[in-house]
């Protein structure tokens, strides 16, 4: 690379922000707020809670339509009973401090749903396709429920103890700032892992 190029091209290693990016220059005012797209385990439990209630209300108020949609042909009473169960689970998930028992309740409910649908698939010849689709949907929900419950269980077990402090575990002879760059010569030993010079900051040539 020739020298004139070096001086005419803006230096990419220079950390001055480019135009229009000055907002990043401002010091951070405390931790940034979680983005709207983020889902905490609690938020997930709540989401499943609302889902339970919606499904429960459908089963309770419109057992016929629900039966038709899923292709199951067992009685209105059974479906309404399932609806009550879903609503109870939903309320539990939305109101309790520890969502765990309710999440496992959902898993048990999923198993019951799957058993009912499976029995239906065997005994009932018409609308098999609908029943099979309903089973696949319930299996997906079951997987999500099991995972949510598992995650909640592990988190509860982990956070039951105060966190350990390992701030004395440096692992190097000197404090990090004094160790910075102490092993730079190692880079010569791995030529195939070096950046092609065209991609390196100009200042380091």
């Amino acid at each position, binding site marked *: 690379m020739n020298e004139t190029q070096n001086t005419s091209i803006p230096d990419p*290693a220079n*950390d*001055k*922000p*480019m135009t229009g*990016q000055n*907002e*990043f*220059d401002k010091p*951070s005012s405390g*931790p*940034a*707020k*979680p*983005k709207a*797209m*983020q*889902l*905490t*385990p609690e938020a*997930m439990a709540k989401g499943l809670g609302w889902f339970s209630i919606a499904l429960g209300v459908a089963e309770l108020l419109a057992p016929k339509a629900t039966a038709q949609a899923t292709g199951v042909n067992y009685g209105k009473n059974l479906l309404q009973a399932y609806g009550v169960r879903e609503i109870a689970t939903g309320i539990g998930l939305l109101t309790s401090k520890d969502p765990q028992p309710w999440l496992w309740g959902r898993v048990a409910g999923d198993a019951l749903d799957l058993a009912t649908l499976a029995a239906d698939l065997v005994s009932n010849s018409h609308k098999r396709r609908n029943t099979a689709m309903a089973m696949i949907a319930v*299996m*997906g929900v079951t*997987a*999500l429920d*099991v*995972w949510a419950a598992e995650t909640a269980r592990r988190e509860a*077990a*982990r956070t039951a*103890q105060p*966190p*350990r*402090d*390992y*701030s004395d*575990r*440096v*692992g*190097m*002879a000197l*404090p*990090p700032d004094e*160790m*910075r*760059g*102490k*092993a*730079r010569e*190692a*880079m010569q*030993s*791995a030529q195939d*892992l*070096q*950046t092609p010079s065209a*991609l*390196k*900051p100009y*200042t*380091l040539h």
Partner: protein
Amino acid sequence: MKALCWHGKKDIRYDTVPDPKIEHPRDAIIKMTSCAICGSDLHLFDGFMPGMEKGDVMGHEFMGEVMEVGPENKKLKVGDKVVVPFTICCGECEQCRRGNFSVCETTNRNKDLADKVFGHTTAGLFGYTHLTGGYAGGQAEFVRVPFADVAPVKIPDGLSDEQVLFLGDIFPTGWQAAVACDIQSTDTVAVWGAGPVGQFAIRSAVMLGAKQVIAIDRLPERLSMAKAGGAITINFEEESVIERLQQLTKGKGPEKCIDAVGMESHATHAIDGLYDRAKQAVMLETDRPHVLREMIYVCRPAGILSIPGVYGGFIDKLPMGALMNKGLTVRTGQTHVNRWTDDLLQRIVDGQVDPSFVITHTASLEQGPEMYKTFRDKLDGCIKVVLKP
């Protein structure tokens, strides 16, 4: 002898199995004195890696004393203290001669299977599925080490097991991850995952001269250890990773990104994590690439992604457009352990690094099954477990 054996998902048992024997003149039998549970063992424990069979002996991080050597093994003598790298290599094939030990062409006994799955075989690994040879692992009283005249690292007197054990895997893995970043003194290196490999990657990046090293995790104990090693920390459950990385790099993004998490990223907090978890549960996807997506998104154009984290199969919704248009370099692979061991052993002897800092739990081999759970669930501040026979 006694060993920790895989019996299925979340089912590791302390079993009695037959003693290993010399099967080839270059073999050696090692009497294990210390072994460790590695983060990638958890992929087997959780049933996310294919190719395990009931009764397989686990473990690929171990060291011990040479008990017996085959007649053609000129390197080792009975009584030698050795650390055994997790990649089995022949030292003779084209890849070994180039120093690409983890893709040795000859040591995978199930080469045909690996050829089919990956297109080409990679090296045989200890205790890590039949896809990589189905070799018995080192979480056992005795281990058969094939091609023992190549990889094992002889340890000089005066060093403890704890100081050198990690030369077999996580220390060179974190080191290679940082070396692959080709760190310049102006670089910000962001490390996703402050588990054991992340901890070594952080210290390696500091020693290789990075201007700024940033560690991303959610567990306070891991973050405190990362900070001790010189990292600025981001708790992804408390703040936005992307926003904070932008702040710390004046809007330009880190030049170098290291994925020390791999296929089981814990992203319950992100929509894409939920999507991947659901697909993974019904076997439509094997790996969860939340970290990869985030790295590709935030990395500075023309930067490097270094991926020591283990992936097993397929991933979905990878932002290939960003990867290509930003001109990112991707470097990945199992560790070419022996490329780095001479240098790293010397650094330990010189006192520059003491890898034992990462050990938080020591237990007996018999307590192994329990320790798998403690490690997996990050209970009791667990970061790294060492097991003793």
